[in-house]
């Protein structure tokens, strides 16, 4: 079996690559035990934490968890529920009982149609991966304006920054409202210049958020921010 590449601290592994012996170790996500050896099942970085070996994937689909705040799009409408595209392997189901309006049976289309975007929360995910969403809660609503952008799910933490520092910097710089959904969808609302700048900033996080030069790149971009007056 081939071994993973040893970097200074990070080790990149590909599916099937041996990470190490499984004796005395617990197997975390992105890995599995096979013949006394832990092998990677995903392309990513090996992580050892509390005697557990896992692989942080470089790319990953959004796997919904109860309580996640997400930006979802209506994919199908039935008489009493909406199927929502949550940017994951499974559609989310929003029953009319969990919508913020009083909806009569058969009147779901009058409230939301295909393509409408909402801010919702994952209410429940059962063992069969049925995802139930809710729009009952503070701030959960239909998003009637603004634009939706995408970031890989693995880049969300980078976009937020420590203690939401990075996302707050972006909000201040472009004077826009920005909501980052756990599902990799980012809603931005403001004037056209602000949205355009926010889009550039989100792309920057995507392309160079992991690099040492990110801070300098973001500062350089901030100089062109609409709130600076020279955009």
């Amino acid at each position, binding site marked *: 079996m081939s071994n993973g590449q040893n970097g200074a601290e990070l080790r990149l592994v*590909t599916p*099937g690559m041996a990470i190490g012996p499984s004796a005395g170790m617990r197997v975390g996500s992105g890995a599995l035990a096979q013949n006394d050896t832990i092998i990677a*099942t995903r392309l990513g970085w090996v992580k050892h934490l509390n005697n557990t070996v896992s692989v942080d994937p470089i*790319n990953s*689909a959004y796997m919904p968890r109860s309580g996640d705040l997400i930006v979802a799009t209506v994919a199908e409408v039935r008489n009493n529920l909406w199927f929502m595209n949550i940017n994951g*392997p499974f559609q989310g189901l929003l029953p009319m009982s969990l919508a913020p309006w009083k909806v009569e049976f058969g009147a779901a289309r009058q409230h939301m149609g295909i393509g409408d975007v909402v801010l919702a929360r994952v209410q429940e995910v059962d063992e*069969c991966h049925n995802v139930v969403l809710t729009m009952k809660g503070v701030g959960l609503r239909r998003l009637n304006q603004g634009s939706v952008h995408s970031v890989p799910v693995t880049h969300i933490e980078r976009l937020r920054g420590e203690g939401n520092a990075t996302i707050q910097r972006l909000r201040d710089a472009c004077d826009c409202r920005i909501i980052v959904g756990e599902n990799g969808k980012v809603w931005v609302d403001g004037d056209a210049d602000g949205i355009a700048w926010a889009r550039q900033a989100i792309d920057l996080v995507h392309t160079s958020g992991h*690099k040492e030069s990110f801070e300098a790149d973001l500062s350089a971009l901030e100089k062109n921010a609409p709130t600076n007056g020279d955009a």
Partner: protein
Amino acid sequence: MGGYGDVKLLRDDGLRLDGRKLDEMRPVTIEAGILPAADGSAMVTHGLNVAVAAVYGPMEAHPRKIQRQDRAVIDVRYNMAPFSTSDRIRPGFNRRSREISKVTAEALESVVLVERYPRSKIRVEIEILAAEAGTRCAGITAASVALADAGIPMRDLLVGVASGKVEDIVVLDLDKAEDNYGQADLPVGILPNTGEIAFLQMDGDLSPDEYNLAMEYNFKAAAEIHEIMVDALKRRYEGGEN
């Protein structure tokens, strides 16, 4: 596998018409992440073959009747571009492309951890831009790299490779003339780390000894291609955590 005519496929010095040794593979290059719109993608050049694979998903499986309650469905579409060969190919599906799509999907289902995504679909598009024998193997290799690039969990990378027989001699990695006028073709999908075989087809006849030698060649070539696949994936993300 035409198998007719007196076409000379081996030179007097024992080498093949293109100068390769019997157990020598055509040059292989792989590049991962070539299509920005896809969740994962790869391009494989294997000799004069050029295969591009794109992976989308996992996503909700439509129509719903194709959903499986306990696992994801891998939907493979293999297609040869009309300009991929010297004779123009009529665009669209044909019996051959349906067969290759099916065997590729079944091979990939055995390496992808499909039980992680019940009721969903993983879409794999394989486009052959240039063809010179061995396109299904190049397509499988490209699909495997693209799946890894998309972050789909897999037990191993799947490598497509083929051996065959020309003038009663077993050779590795048939080119176009050898494929057309040779006596046998043995494409396989190999999991290099475990040595498992995910798919195997045979066209023509091989004796048990010839089969064993052909498989020996295939495993040796699979190990070489696997190194190139790993390099391609690492190259894409080198320079730090991405």
